[in-house]
């Protein structure tokens, strides 16, 4: 008997099982194959725009992904460093051997956590409550809570050209019955599709025909622990190439052979818009003469090179022609062909914000099974499901991050409120208040939550509180100290290309000038401050006006989110509700007026009706 069973050892499953075990709940992680724990079946990278910030958020909350990525870096850079602080994010190439190896080590060294190799084919359910799982061999294992993190393994089909094989990304056996069982229990099952490009033998590529893409020449870490495990000069480069007219011609001529364009007639899965196959790109953007492709190293321990941007479901012979039409790849050896994969997922509208399912109590789902795509998206859901499973075991309220608190909050709210049609990828444009959701302030936003649930140690929390106090102290200092335009000071400012002072000015206001950096003020500041403290203060002051604007907007949303809708509300009893709105409200059962407003098809008029109804039925005061 376990308190928690986690089904699936991918990025979601790892975070979920680590969270529940670390909080102190006896946890069993069941995976089809221990070798595939924390596997990276697609691109060899962690982070990227928005996703990189999610990794920071995971770390701030006490999750593992950031630390684990830091241990397996091949290359890292800060994206958008020329833009504002809101959109900066880290992107790293991570070693596909080291990353899973390190994660497995961590799992094995975690108290309260056991790992078991098996296939789960059913859930044990009594009175709409989950009680455990049934394995392929009929064995039953009992637990208070089950977290499903099955990734793409529900009825997975690998598609290449006109072939369809029932198997997972590495040819393993997928779970054939679990999704049917879920359907029986009342879940809407949707079919999704994604794809991955070829892997090429490194020694067969002529890199002289490519453009070098290097990592940054300064150190970065995803984790707030700041432990560096790599050397700047030893980072592994990527390479950039472009598709050729010949490539486009081959694809055009063979379009009907692609699984997605006629090769297979029974495609039901909906592919992601953000990550179309190369044939999609050529069909949809006919005018574009060439497309960028990145050659990315997968590992130091084997020689596969991943062609980012070239995912396809063409048959193997056509893939050969396509690859050989690329500059530097004329004689390339394909170690692994590109494929598309179709899999089952559940409709996330059937989840609560806590990631517990609405239909079956104590059953949580996280990751690709919820319709998302991406390692980071999966990991953060796993973490939240793990945290909320623990809170549920302890009889506490779930942790629900708001849209102005974390990208994780945006992601989960989008999933459960809007549902998805194609695999969901996080983008900065999905966040309304992204200036509040920065790379640099993830700890400021979330560390307390991590500490409260028990995933952040006293020591780390103290360190964080010190940082917070220093930020306040330094801000206060800048606000209360003025400098006067003496000759000496103006001359100093001149050496920094800062226009001279006419009147005395607080350091705070001086810093507001676009040409002034906080480091320029060092000589005017008593005491030394860490660079991350200075960074916080600088951003807060420089962008104060914009931050205020976003906070104001966010507060409006929070007000609406704080207007709760009672769990037992009966939408059939509200007269005049538009029928589309009624149907969606009944399905999604939003917990707040704010969430209800974000449901497409629910109009402000419907919202007013709900508000009046709630007022009448639930708060009819003693009149």
């Amino acid at each position, binding site marked *: 008997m376990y308190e928690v069973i986690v089904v699936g050892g991918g990025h979601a499953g790892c975070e979920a099982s680590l969270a529940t075990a670390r909080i102190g709940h006896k946890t069993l992680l069941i995976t089809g194959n221990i070798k595939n724990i924390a596997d990276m079946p697609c691109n060899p990278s962690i982070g990227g725009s928005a996703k990189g910030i999610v990794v920071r958020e995971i770390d701030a909350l006490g999750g593992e992904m950031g630390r684990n990525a830091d241990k397996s870096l091949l290359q890292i850079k800060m994206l958008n460093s020329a833009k504002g602080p809101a959109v900066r994010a880290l992107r790293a190439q991570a070693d596909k051997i080291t990353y899973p190896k390190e994660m497995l080590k961590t799992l094995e060294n975690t108290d309260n956590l056991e790992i078991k190799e098996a296939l789960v084919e059913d859930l044990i359910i009594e009175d709409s409550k989950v009680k455990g799982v049934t394995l392929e061999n009929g064995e039953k294992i009992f637990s208070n809570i089950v977290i499903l993190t099955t990734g793409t393994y529900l009825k997975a089909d690998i598609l290449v050209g006109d072939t369809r094989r029932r198997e997972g990304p590495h040819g393993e056996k997928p779970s054939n019955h679990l999704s049917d069982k879920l359907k029986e229990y009342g879940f809407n099952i949707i079919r999704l599709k994604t794809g991955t490009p070829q892997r090429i033998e490194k020694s067969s590529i002529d890199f002289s025909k490519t453009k070098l893409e290097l990592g940054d020449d300064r150190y970065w870490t995803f984790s707030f622990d700041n432990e560096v495990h790599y050397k700047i000069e030893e980072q592994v480069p990527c390479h950039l190439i472009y598709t050729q007219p010949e490539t486009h011609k081959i694809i055009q001529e063979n379009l009907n052979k692609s699984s997605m364009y006629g090769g297979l007639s029974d495609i039901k899965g909906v592919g992601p818009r953000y990550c179309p196959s190369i044939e999609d790109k050529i069909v949809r953007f006919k005018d574009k003469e060439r497309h960028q492709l990145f050659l990315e190293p997968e590992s130091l321990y084997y020689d596969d090179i991943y062609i980012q941007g070239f995912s396809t479901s063409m048959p193997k012979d056509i893939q050969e022609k396509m690859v050989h039409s690329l500059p530097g790849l004329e004689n390339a050896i394909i170690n692994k062909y590109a494929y598309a994969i179709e899999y089952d997922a559940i409709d996330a509208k059937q989840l609560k914000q806590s990631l517990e399912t609405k239909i079956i109590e104590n059953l949580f789902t996280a990751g690709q099974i919820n319709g998302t795509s991406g390692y980071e998206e999966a990991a953060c859901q796993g973490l939240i499901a793990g945290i909320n499973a623990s809170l549920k075991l302890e009889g506490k309220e779930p942790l629900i991050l708001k849209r102005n608190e974390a990208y994780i909050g945006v992601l989960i709210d989008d999933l459960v409120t809007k549902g998805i049609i194609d695999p969901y990828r996080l983008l900065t444009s999905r966040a309304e208040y992204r200036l509040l959701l920065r790379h640099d302030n993830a700890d400021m936003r979330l560390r307390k939550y991590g500490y409260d649930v028990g995933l952040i140690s006293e020591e780390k929390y103290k360190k964080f509180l010190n940082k917070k106090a220093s930020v306040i102290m330094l801000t206060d200092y800048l606000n209360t100290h003025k400098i006067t335009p003496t000759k000496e000071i103006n001359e100093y400012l001149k050496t920094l290309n800062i226009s001279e002072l006419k009147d005395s000015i607080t350091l705070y206001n001086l810093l507001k000038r676009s040409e002034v950096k906080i480091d320029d003020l060092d000589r005017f500041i008593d005491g030394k401050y860490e660079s991350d403290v200075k960074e916080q203060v600088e951003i807060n002051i420089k962008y104060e006006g*914009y931050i205020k*604007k976003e906070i104001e907007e966010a507060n409006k949303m929070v007000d609406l989110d704080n207007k709760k809708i009672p769990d037992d509300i009966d939408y059939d009893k509200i007269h005049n509700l538009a029928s589309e709105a009624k149907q969606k409200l009944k399905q999604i059962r939003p917990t707040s007026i704010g969430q209800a407003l974000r449901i497409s098809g629910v109009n402000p008029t419907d919202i007013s009706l709900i508000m009046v109804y709630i007022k009448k039925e639930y708060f009819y005061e003693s009149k």
Partner: protein
Amino acid sequence: MDDTIAAISTALGVGAISIIRVSGKDAIKIVNKIFKGKNLNEVDSHTINYGHIVDNNEIIDEVLVSVMRSPKTFTCEDVVEINTHGGIAITNKVLELLLLNGSRLALPGEFTKRAFLNGRIDLIEAEGVMDLINSKTEKSRKLAINQVNGEVSKLIKNLRQDIIEILANIEVNIDYPEYEDIEEVTNQKILNSVSDIEIKIKNILSKSIDGKIIKEGIKTIIIGSPNVGKSSILNRLINEEKAIVTDIAGTTRDIVEGNITIDGIILNIIDTAGIRKTDNYVESLGVKKSLELIDEADLILYVLNNNEELSKEEKYILNKIKNKNHIIIINKTDLDNRLDLNIFNDYVKLSIKNDTGIDELKNKIKDMFNLEKIEKEDFTYLSSARSISLLKKSLDSLESVKEGINKNMPVDMVEIDLKQVWNTLGEIIGETYSDELIDQLFSQFCLGK
């Protein structure tokens, strides 16, 4: 909804009976404090009571007071209605006393809002005031669309399309920074588009304001210090043009004194008697209110006394109105000149006593609104005050875009204000935020892994 609200609930005309409505849990207690007659705390519900409104011991007016206790009232709360003998000065005085004694001035539509939220009126009745429920529901799609004519809605849609293309491009630069072959949006590029967008919005705005004037009249306020002759000028205008006692419902805050027609154009004159200062509290209230009125007015007639030097307060108001449509009226030119006229660029000299200057004033108003031109135009523009204020708001956000660019802010900061322009324009035509931007992103650019 814990506080008690008060407002003049009838549109005031000269000599009409006015009703002041008070609603909320302290309504009866507050009115009782300024009422001399029966103890209202003890009278039966739904009774009408005769008595006087008093300020300390001074009788302000002879009134009838209806007391209606919750829940069988319009708002479902305790409601008191005071019937005064009309007259703007008296009605305002009574309202001021109510505000001084613990009630707050109701927002436009707030009584209806309370009635609705308390479940007193059903949807069909309430639909007309939906946009007041709260900021989010203000976006009420239907309401907005009905207010907007097809042609202008098309103009705004095109504008939004221009903006969203820029936004999507910025977003792609952010979300796919490694894609070098996508054009990088710079502040300079945004600046070019912004001027274009600004011209288009201003064009819609100016035509919309003209349209509103044709439909609703020019919202005109006469302001000035006490005893500069505001009322005499008002009376002179009204007498001349045979004032129509208005039946156009203003909002509860606007007390429309009367309508004047000059060559077919309606001036809605708004009384500012409430601005008069009696003590400190009212003074602050009065200044606040007059500033509000200045913001809302289409035309400000600012009356100064030829016989007195400019006061500090007058200078302040002059500064406030300098960017608004205004006419400075120098009254009492029959008296000695003590006012320095050199500081004004333009003004109308007037003497009520000698009956000079009124025609000049009317001509000036006509010139200002270019009335001949308006009549020939085809009015297919936004005419609701709400849409016009949203247009203005989007211009403000455009200003912030330019300011950000001048300050050399990163493009993603500048984008915050540009997105605001896009959202505000969307509010006008009833399109709320959705996944439009993300859809645009994927249809406009070719991306992939």
